[in-house]
């Protein structure tokens, strides 16, 4: 939801802290689930991630989550899906070139990042998304990457 999304950016520092706190727990749980159930529970886990992140950030489930590096503003809401924004078309009032009724996702991102402890992460260059991951869970991906490293 748009208003919740703006709220998340305004409170990016809180969400960053929350994320840093719960993320290891989520990943540990998912590793446990994977060990016991394999991939059987992927669909409900993905749906849960989509529901929660959708509500908070208007997450588009790109499968390459970058929220911690984008001031808690989901870059996939940018009509040009820019991963290193903003573009040069931002309106003087900070609204999006393409959707004048929406605050530019990347104006929000730099703003959110300025409040985050690790906000400088936005300064690192992100390569384009892997389109094969669309609709997949980033949490499961990260959990399984950890498992591969552990093995």
């Amino acid at each position: 939801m748009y208003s919740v999304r703006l709220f998340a950016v305004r409170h990016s520092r809180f969400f960053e802290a929350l994320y840093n706190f719960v993320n290891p727990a989520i990943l540990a749980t998912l590793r446990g689930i994977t060990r016991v159930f394999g991939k059987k529970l992927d669909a409900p886990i993905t749906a849960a991630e989509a529901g929660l992140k959708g509500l908070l950030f208007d997450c588009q489930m790109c499968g390459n989550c970058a929220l911690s590096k984008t001031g808690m503003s989901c870059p996939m809401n940018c009509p040009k899906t820019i991963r290193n924004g903003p573009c040069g078309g931002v309106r003087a009032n900070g609204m999006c070139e393409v959707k004048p009724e929406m605050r530019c996702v990347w104006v929000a991102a730099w703003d959110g990042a300025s409040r985050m402890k690790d906000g400088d992460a936005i300064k690192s260059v992100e390569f384009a998304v892997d389109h094969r991951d669309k609709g997949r869970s980033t949490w499961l991906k990260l959990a399984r990457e950890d498992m591969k490293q552990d093995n």
Partner: protein
Amino acid sequence: MSSTDIDVGKVGTNPGDPLPRLEGHVSHGRFERVLKAGHFAVTTEIAPPDSADPDEVLVRAAMFDGYVDAINATDGSGAHCHMSSLAVCAILTRLGYSPILQISCRDRNRISIQGDTLGAAALGVCNVLCLTGDDVGAGDHPEAKPVFDLDSISLAQTIRTMRDKKTFLSGRKLDLEPRLFIGSSINPFVPPIENRADQLAKKIASGAEYIQSQYCFDMPVLKDFMSRARDLGLTEEAFIIIGVGVLPSAKTAKWMRSNVPGVHIPDDIIRRLEQAEKPKLEGRKICAEIMQQLKEIDGVAGAHVMAYRQEQWVGDVVKRSGVLGDRKPWAPEKTDTTIGTVS
């Protein structure tokens, strides 16, 4: 560098043959040479024709002869269909011009872009400008599917990979890498103004070696931006070329301000045009004055003159500004350049 500084003897027999690549240069092109020699460069934009006529391209380019160091061939700018940037560049390189291939991410995915990059280099193109591109809704085919597989920064990384690692993004080897001088754009005049220098840093980190900016009509904002860029050491890492515009009237200026994304024109410029007896002349004077001021700013490496539908005046503003000093940019010999129309 005047045209005579280039050892013509070492150049092939055709004007479009590549120049030898100088020590410390990434491309074979003249544009990179001008910048690396420390000259204040002037670039401009050619409007690709709505036509299959190659002569139309040459006629439009000839208007800039002797005044510009490179010519940007726009890529479906404003999301409108025109002759492709690659084709315009290929026509221009035949005569030895230094075109800048603009690649927008709106219409092509990474497979197509990498193919075009190789093709462009094979056709003698030495410069590329990486752009994200305008939204399709801005153009005459709003029903088209926007691609945006990459963004401008990923695009610069892609070309850098091809050139410096000699591979496609997939890792597959290239037999001969595209020797392109890589550029990117920046708009210091729209929000988030306080982060635009940081974004410039990202563009440079992604591989941009020169930058061309959006229209500059607001000196204080630019000076602020440049001082941040200098503080971050960015002016040492890339050549920063600032965009300037030729405004024909207050009416057009106002229209551009409200309809062209990313164009910022302060009220005092509009007032000047309104009050001028000859607004067209005033517009050219404004442009020339801004160019003179740019030349004084530490770290500004050149001016990019955008004169859409006023291309015939580019030479006039460059002359008026005096930014070239006594340097005359290379231009092809005046010959019959007719390629002939395919009909």
